[in-house]
C-alpha cells in the first residue's frame, strides 16, 4: 500500500472528534490542513511526536493551517489521551469502519491493524501537496511539515 502522492485530491472524510461531535475535512476548505496519521494513543513515540506538534501550534497558525491527528483509537480513548497530555488540537477516531480513512490515504497496516506514521499537508483547495511516511518507530519531527507549508502559495491568496 503506497501513501497518496502530492497532486492527489485528498479523500474526503467525516470522523468523530469527540463523543458528540464529528468533523469533516471539507470544513477546512480555504485553509491548509496538516493530517497526522499515527499508530496509537499512549504509545511512546506517538506521544512525543504529538507533544512536539502541540508546541508548534503557533507556528502552524502562521500559515492558518489546521492540525488534525488521526488514529484507529476510539473517541473515549482520544479524550483520555488529550486530557492526560494537555494537547490543544483535535484527534479524530478512524474507528468504524476501522482504518477506513487510513486505507483511503494508502497508509493502513493490515497486519497490525493500525496506520503508518504518516504526514500529509493538504492545501486550501483540498489537494495533497506533501506526504511522508516515517518508519513506525521513528518520530518524524516537524521540519518536513514546516517546509511543506512554506512551499504553499502565500495566503490569503
Amino acid at each position, binding site marked *: 500500500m503506497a501513501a497518496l502522492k502530492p497532486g492527489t485530491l485528498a479523500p474526503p472524510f467525516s470522523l468523530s472528534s469527540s463523543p458528540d461531535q464529528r468533523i469533516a475535512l471539507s470544513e477546512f476548505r480555504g485553509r491548509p490542513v496538516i493530517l497526522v496519521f499515527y499508530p496509537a494513543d499512549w504509545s511512546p513515540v506517538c506521544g*512525543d*511526536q504529538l*507533544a*512536539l506538534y*502541540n*508546541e*508548534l501550534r503557533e*507556528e502552524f497558525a502562521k500559515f492558518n493551517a489546521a492540525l488534525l491527528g488521526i488514529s484507529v483509537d476510539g473517541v473515549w480513548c482520544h479524550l483520555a489521551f488529550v486530557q492526560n*497530555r*494537555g*494537547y*490543544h488540537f483535535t484527534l479524530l477516531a478512524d474507528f468504524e469502519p476501522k482504518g477506513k480513512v487510513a486505507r483511503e490515504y494508502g497508509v493502513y497496516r493490515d497486519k497490525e491493524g493500525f496506520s503508518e506514521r504518516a504526514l500529509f499537508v493538504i492545501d486550501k483547495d483540498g489537494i495533497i501537496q506533501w506526504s*511522508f511516511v516515517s518508519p513506525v518507530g521513528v*518520530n*518524524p*519531527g*516537524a*521540519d*518536513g511539515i*514546516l517546509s511543506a507549508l512554506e512551499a504553499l502559495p502565500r495566503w490569503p491568496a
Partner: protein
Amino acid sequence: MACVSLTIAVGKEDHVQGPVTAPLTLVEYGDYECPYCGAAYPMVKAIAKRFGSKLRVVFRNMPLNEMHPNAELAAEAAEAAAAQGKFWEMHDALYEHQSELGPELVRTLARRLHLDEARLEDDLTSRRFRDHVRRDFMGGVRSGVAGTPTFFINGERYDGVLDEESLAAALQRQIGSAK
C-alpha cells in the same frame, strides 16, 4: 525530509563550554524537566571530562511546555543566569535538582549562585528570554529534532545509543576522520 544536519551553526548566542579551537563540538537540545535529559546530564559531564580540551559542549533549549510545566521557567532562568555570567552553574544546578523544579528552586539557586536576585526575578517576570528560548526551539525543529535530548556531533545528528561509551566512540571516530 530526514534533515540530520544542524541548520544553525554554533554562534554568539550559544552557551559553550570548552575551547573554540576544539576539534569536536557536541550540541545538545534539551529540556530541563525531561527525565531523559536528566539521565543524560551526568553522561555529558563525563564525556566533557574525558575529552577535555578536544571538546566543546553547547546547550540549546527545547522545552516541551505542555508536558513539562516548569521547563520554560527553567530555560528562561538559565538564560537569565547567563546574562549574569553563570549559565553553566545554573544549568548544572537545575539538572542536579530536576525533581524540585519550580519558582522556589529558581530563587534558591539564584541565592546560592550569588546572582543579582532582583534582576533575575525581573528578567523572568518580563519574559526577557522567551524569544531566545523560542529561537533555540525552532532552530532545533528545523534541524529535525523531534524529541529531547538530541545531540549533534560536529553538526551531524547522533542517532546512536545514548550511553557514555557509544557517544564517546562516535566522538572518537570524528577525531579520527578529521586527521
